[in-house]
């Protein structure tokens, strides 16, 4: 069972590493937020507040204490699950997150599914039918997709599909006149399906399709390219030729034998791609007025809401760290397995 032990050790070390990095990140962002010019208490209360009120808020936020003390207070409250109070919405940050995070999660999930389907399929097809018109076409599309910033993609989609073709609605998660479904998971499509409100589900789906696709474009472009080149590489391998000679049908070869090894480079860039998905979500949510975590983050940043900014950056760091961890584990899982299989058989 040496393999399992090694995996556990690897996971353990990675977890420790991630924890350290998160700790350092929190220190960094906290430091920056407290060192910046400007008086957060005054900004929060506005110009009409009296000096005493501002001073009181300052003491509440521990702004008068030295920096390490501030950090200690903040760390202590974080471990108790309290990320502070947002200076902008005046509510506990945790409540804000609770409300907005599912929207973004739903968006990211949808775009992930879209990019998986479109990206992988087109990558495999382009790799298999190398140098065909489809290959050239998809290569051109992915070049442009990579070169277009997410907000431009979102705006182009908005222009083409919403305004010109009238395909999909422009803002929000569901229509204004619709009643939102009971909140079970926070995913509107899911919740409305569970509650049996099919019309709401369809409406929500129409709302999500455009932002999810805009988010997925850069991802599709990247992944399609990588999948294509790894399919091309693997097609040259001997085992494919052997299978063909043995008379195994082509679609079997593609799905049973080619797909797994070709997925390795794709999965390993998924970690990096996820960073871009998060970053692009900020822009896409803004364009489509999607009430999600990223738009919340932009709002609090524009309003210099210190507590919320720190919390937001931390959440992003945590999410990114988790995804990277999973990707690393999956990659190390896929790789030695195949190496072992090859040696054995």
């Amino acid at each position, binding site marked *: 069972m040496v393999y399992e032990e090694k995996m556990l050790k690897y996971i353990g070390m990675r977890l420790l590493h991630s924890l350290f990095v998160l700790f350092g990140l929190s220190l960094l962002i906290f430091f920056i937020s407290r060192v910046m010019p400007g008086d957060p208490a005054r900004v929060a209360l506005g110009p009409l507040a009296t000096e005493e009120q501002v001073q009181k808020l300052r003491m509440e936020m521990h702004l008068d204490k030295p920096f390490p003390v501030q950090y200690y207070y903040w760390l202590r409250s974080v471990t108790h699950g309290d990320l502070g109070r947002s200076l902008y919405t005046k509510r506990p940050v945790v409540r804000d997150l609770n409300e907005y995070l599912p929207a973004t999660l739903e968006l990211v999930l949808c775009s992930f599914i879209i990019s998986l389907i479109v990206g992988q399929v087109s990558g495999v097809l382009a790799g298999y039918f190398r140098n065909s018109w489809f290959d050239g076409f998809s290569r051109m599309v992915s070049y442009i997709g990579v070169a277009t910033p997410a907000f*431009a993609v979102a705006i182009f989609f908005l222009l083409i599909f919403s305004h010109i073709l009238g395909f999909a609605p422009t803002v929000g998660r569901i229509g204004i006149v619709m009643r939102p479904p009971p909140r079970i998971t926070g995913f509107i499509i899911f919740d409305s399906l569970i509650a049996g409100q099919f019309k709401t589900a369809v409406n929500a789906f129409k709302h999500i399709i455009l932002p999810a696709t805009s988010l997925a474009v850069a991802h599709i472009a990247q992944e399609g390219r990588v999948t294509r080149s790894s399919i091309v590489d693997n097609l040259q391998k001997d085992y494919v030729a052997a299978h063909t000679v043995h008379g195994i049908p082509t679609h079997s070869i593609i799905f049973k034998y080619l797909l797994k090894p070709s997925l390795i480079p794709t999965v390993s860039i998924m970690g990096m791609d996820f960073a871009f998905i998060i970053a692009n979500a900020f822009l896409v949510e803004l364009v489509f007025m999607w009430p999600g975590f990223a738009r919340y983050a932009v709002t609090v940043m524009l309003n210099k809401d210190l507590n919320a900014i720190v919390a937001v950056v931390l959440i992003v760091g945590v999410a990114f760290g988790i995804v990277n961890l999973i990707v690393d584990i999956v990659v190390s899982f896929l790789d030695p397995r195949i190496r072992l299989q090859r040696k054995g058989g």
Partner: protein
Amino acid sequence: MGVSKGWYKFSRNPLSVLGLTVLIIIVLAAVFAPYITPYPEHAGPFTNFRESSLPPGPKHFFGTDTVGRDVFTRVIFGYRFSLLLAVVVISLSVPPGILLGLIAGYTKRRSLEIVIMRVTDIFLAVPPLVLALAITAMLSPNLLNQMMAISLMWWPWYCRLVYSVTTSLRHEYFVHDAELTGAKKAFILIRSILPNCVGPVLTKITLDMGFVITLGASLSFIGLGVQPPKPGLGTMVADGAKRLPAEWWMTVFPALAIVLVILSFNLIGDGLRDMFAVEEI
């Protein structure tokens, strides 16, 4: 590798040469903007409401915006900001990144290596846009702060890249030989290891130009970068977006301009990658 040999390899790629041509045109246009644009005064505070919101036509190639400024002129001037941003960020972030990467990769002191790489990891723990957003948000939003914020979190990428090259070469024979003959560390680093970094670093720089421009445009789009009335490309897209779909030219042309410049950088980067890759056998 000689320049002529390198150019030959690069020119094998028609797309890369196209990218280079387009980029040269854009750079020249940006540098000589006041002389070649039809309405240079439109790039600043200027209003002419009688000619506002005009669609593209012979007098205004890209139409005019809501206060009557020529979009074409502003796009060319906007290129100035984007290119300046890219150049400044790269010059500020690449040298320290390379330096730290070399030190971390070559030093015999594990503690130093660990410290440098951990700090790098911390900066890489969040997507670049998010951190740049947070930092710019906490300062006052303008081009200078934008440049500082982006540079601050761009150097780790180069540190990591150079680090991986350095560590892979550290135990090679030619490095060992140099050490045995008593060469100073700095000498080894500069003469033996650094030339091997040039290829990947140069390719990355070209591709990064595109990334930095995207980042800058995104920041401006959100409102934390170039402020109106200055003609930043991202700012123009954001302003024009409010006018969709009727007055589409105010958004579409700046957006296309961004895509064009990023595309050319990417094509050049691909050509560079091919140029350097063949050498590794």
